[in-house]
């Protein structure tokens, strides 16, 4: 579904992505984990061509995203929904208008249908009563959920999540995890989740990739990931108090990810 081939990117004279080869299968949730500043968000931005690789290629299906432009790029991007780290809601629009924005700007749906779709998506993320509020009037967790409602309002095939649980309290974080997992289960969307919250990744990921110093150093199912003997993976797991699979299960984090 999504394929990165030898992607290299330099930013500010520093190599951020150093030859990324990665494939995301249709209908799976791939979580990309790693410490801050290792290029996770940069990699995500390459998939929707917010950034262009200095070397390598990015495909979505058969389309070469890394060289697409104009109407072709627009068409490719219409297959995506993206949840940005901050929610990226437009501050001068209400939550409802933010969610309605892609429908108003990019479809010919009449206002009645738009409102129905907005209500449906806000209901899905538990924000049915926040439609008339402005982004500045709601909490960080609600902003992320509103951003998610906007990302899914056009029923995309692929959803990219950039740090969906960062800065949230554990309860809100698990709510977001459940939403991501529900979307995969109910709508069969393909998801790429960039996160440094390993509990979240282990809960929702079909596979987990670890990025360190611009390279994928580990890629596998949650079980394989936890069993990894790679030094950086072990350090990352231990930093979040996950040393063995049994401990992670006992922590209760796995509950949301039962499939």
């Amino acid at each position, binding site marked *: 579904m999504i394929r990165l081939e030898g992607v290299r990117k330099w930013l500010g004279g520093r190599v951020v992505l150093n030859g990324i080869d990665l494939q995301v299968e249709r209908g799976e949730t791939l979580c990309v984990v790693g410490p801050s500043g290792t290029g996770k968000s940069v990699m995500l931005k390459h998939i*929707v061509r917010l950034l262009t690789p200095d070397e390598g290629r990015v495909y979505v299906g058969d389309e070469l995203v890394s060289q697409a432009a104009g109407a072709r790029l627009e068409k490719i991007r219409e297959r995506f929904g*993206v949840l940005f780290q901050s929610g990226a809601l437009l501050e001068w629009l209400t939550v409802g208008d933010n969610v309605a924005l*892609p429908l108003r700007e990019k479809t010919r749906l009449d206002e009645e249908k738009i409102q129905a779709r907005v209500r449906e998506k806000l209901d899905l993320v538990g924000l049915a009563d926040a439609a008339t509020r402005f982004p500045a009037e709601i909490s960080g967790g609600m902003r992320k959920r509103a951003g998610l409602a*906007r990302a899914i309002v056009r029923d995309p095939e692929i959803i990219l999540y950039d740090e969906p649980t960062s800065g949230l309290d554990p309860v809100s974080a698990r709510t977001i995890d459940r939403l991501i997992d529900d979307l995969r289960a109910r709508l069969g969307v393909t998801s790429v989740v960039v996160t440094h919250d390993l509990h979240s990744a282990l809960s929702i990921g079909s596979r987990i990739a670890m990025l360190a110093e611009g390279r994928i150093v580990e890629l596998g199912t949650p079980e394989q990931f936890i069993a990894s003997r790679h030094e950086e993976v072990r350090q990352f797991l231990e930093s979040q108090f996950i040393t063995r699979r049994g401990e992670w299960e006992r922590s209760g984090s796995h509950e949301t990810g039962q499939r």
Partner: protein
Amino acid sequence: MLTVVRNLGRALLLLGEAVACVRFMFVRRSFREIVRQMFVCGIKSLGVITVVASFTGMILALQTGLEMRKFGQEVYIGGAVMVSMLREMGPFMTGLILAASVGSAIAAQMGTMAVGEEIAALEVMSINPVRFLVMPRLVAMAIMTPLLSFYSCILGVVGGGIVGVTQLGVAWSAYIDNASRFVETKDLYVGMFKALLFGVIIVTAACHEGFGATQGAVGVGNATRRTVIISFLAILVAGYFVTRIFYV
């Protein structure tokens, strides 16, 4: 130097793209946004423009009148104030005020949107940020800056007239008669053209700097500061060349 040329090129490309989007200005949602921006850019600046334009006219009349009084020619201040305001001071003062108030506000808003990934969000929704954000502001400023400039000219002339009558003993009818005798239609349209150009410069600089903002609040602050400086300099330089083209 290379950076200046590169930034100028990018700003001109942005302007070109925004101008190409002007064909969508009568689409209902775009039109509504243009009207909203006309209110934000124009009507909200009326207060400060009223004060600055009135006092500019008054200062012009007082300084010119005091010198001309030495030769008994103070009756001609009407022409001096009218020509100065229409040709130079009206568009120039309006441009500087809008650069400081509207330009900085646009740069701060665009910069905040850029660092908050809102512009990236528009792009991935396949909503063209230039059409959605820049074009309405460009059209609004291209309409409102000449109108505000004309408004400031009228206030400047009225302010000059008040000084003429109260401080220099010039009859109101003589002042107005003199003001209309020396002015040409060309002064009006060159002044309006200058104002339009200044409006376009301000929006282009503000959006270009705002879109390029990085590194959080510091980046937004830098973008805002650069917008005001670039706009001031560009207004001065462009003003000189327009005057040279039309009057030399």
